[in-house]
């Protein structure tokens, strides 16, 4: 037993041990700063260059040979439409795959191999997806260099992210809730649709947005499938044509997207185009941040109702 007279010794031990706390928190702050400062410097630099260029005309003009007249209309419309196709195809596929692996798949070596491969898919360079899509979607299925091809390519790219996020958020549901549902006499599908999906939706949504935020900035696979860099027209408005065939005209339209527009402008010799690229970059980052903001808001709203 320590005596009261050992108080100074105890304090010395505590202060020595606490030095590691201090050391580690400094190290942590330093690592954080590397990331945050790099982003801030890049973003501020881009904003200083680009923000003065932002105007109503910049958003409503097609690209042009004259930098002052050039705008991002076809690029932001293209980005939104491609993202729409990506979300509509990747979310159902990814969530279904995640639910299947967690709730239905037998636990055997085949499932293990599938699981390992899904993790590996997340690490494949995006250009490889571009090559796959060029062969498969553009030529084999004959979708051409269209919004559909681009959307499906990006969907493949973010599928592993959504599958992994779905599985993680399903695993976060306590086993007791699971068992409670089955004990009531529910089938697996009733358990999934009444409990698993509603309770994991916040986590799945986060994964979807992280995936989409990655997809929105992807350039390489989109260039690989042959997106045009100069598009001076808009596709037909989605779902506006004569149903049923006319509603889907837009998915076969040629297109460009924000990062390709930026890439195109930065490769021009004139300095004015660099300003355009910075402005487009600012808009792109803003789109990503807006998506993340939406995700945080929705997650907060969904989580409020869920307590174990």
């Amino acid at each position, binding site marked *: 037993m320590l005596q009261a007279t050992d108080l100074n010794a105890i304090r010395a031990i505590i202060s020595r041990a606490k030095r590691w706390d201090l050391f580690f928190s400094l190290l942590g702050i330093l690592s954080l700063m590397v990331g945050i400062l790099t982003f801030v410097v890049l973003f501020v630099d881009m904003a200083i260059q680009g923000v003065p260029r932002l105007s109503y005309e910049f958003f409503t003009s097609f690209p042009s040979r004259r930098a002052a007249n050039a705008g991002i209309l076809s690029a932001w419309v293209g980005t939104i439409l491609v993202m729409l196709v990506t979300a509509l195809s990747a979310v159902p596929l990814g969530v279904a795959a995640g639910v299947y692996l967690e709730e239905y798949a037998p636990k055997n070596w085949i499932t293990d191999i599938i699981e390992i491969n899904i993790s590996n898919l997340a690490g494949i360079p995006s250009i490889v997806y571009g090559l796959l899509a060029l062969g498969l979607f553009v030529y084999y299925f004959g979708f051409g260099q269209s919004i559909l091809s681009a959307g499906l390519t990006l969907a493949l790219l973010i599928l592993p992210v959504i599958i992994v996020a779905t599985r993680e958020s399903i695993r976060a549901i306590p086993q*007791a809730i699971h068992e*409670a*549902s*089955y004990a*009531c006499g*529910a089938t697996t599908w009733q358990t999934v649709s009444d409990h698993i999906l509603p*309770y994991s939706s916040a986590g799945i949504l986060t994964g979807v947005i992280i995936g989409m935020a990655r997809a929105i900035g992807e350039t390489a696979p989109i260039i690989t499938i042959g997106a045009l860099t100069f598009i001076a027209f808009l596709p037909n408005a989605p779902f506006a044509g004569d149903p049923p065939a006319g509603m889907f005209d837009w998915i076969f339209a040629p297109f460009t997207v924000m990062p390709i527009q930026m890439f195109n402008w930065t490769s021009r010799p004139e300095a004015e185009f660099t300003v355009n690229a910075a402005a487009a970059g600012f808009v792109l980052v803003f789109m990503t941040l807006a998506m993340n903001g939406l995700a945080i808001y929705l997650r907060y709203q969904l989580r409020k109702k869920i307590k174990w």
Partner: protein
Amino acid sequence: MEAGVEGSLLKAEVRELDFFYGAFHALKRVTMPIYDHKVTALIGPSGCGKSTLLRCFNRMHDLYPGNRYAGGGIVFHPDNTNLLSPEVDPIEVRMRISMVFQKPNPFPKTIYENVAYSLRVRGMTNKSELDGRVESALKGAALWNEVSNRLQELGANLSGGQQQRLCIARALASDPEIILFDEPTSALDPIATASIEELVTELKEKVTILIVTHNMQQAARISDFTAYMYLGEMVEFGVTDQIFIKPTKKATEDYITGRFG
């Protein structure tokens, strides 16, 4: 038949049941009767197989790979169905036998929806019918007076004891033939425990009860029959008073008097 059980009808019989978790032989030729409208308690030290046996009754083990019913069965009366037979759908079994778990596990839904869920999986959609059944289940679980004016609040907002009674209401709503209780009070304070115990004794008017407890006083207070298990074997089954006052086996006596376990 055991002494003192004349006049009690059999609801189910466990017959020479063997059960494995992978290679682990968790239940060894367990045999015991379950009497209709009585409370039967399963007691024994941790790891003796009492929860394992309980979870055989609603085929909870089917949810996990590697679990195996290896021989014998549970015969359910009056229809003589073997609950563990591969031809019997586990969902059919769970429709007839409901369960209350160790820790209160209400769904993150409203109080109303928690109780109504048992009925919804049985295809009930009529609003007034649901309302009536939810009300009577909540009354049966002695919770109605506390929640009647806040049925649309989340179940998780209730206290621990109330949550457990909500889970009992959920188990009761579907008019099961047996309710299984897996140490239902081990996560509750003494006052909540007393209210659950009182409820269990009242419930046997309506339903047969099988309860696992690690608390021997609880078994003595609320059960009509007690089974003592050890290392996956049924050591002794009998009328609760007999088991606690003059057990026939030395092992049971050692456990009950606290010399062991």
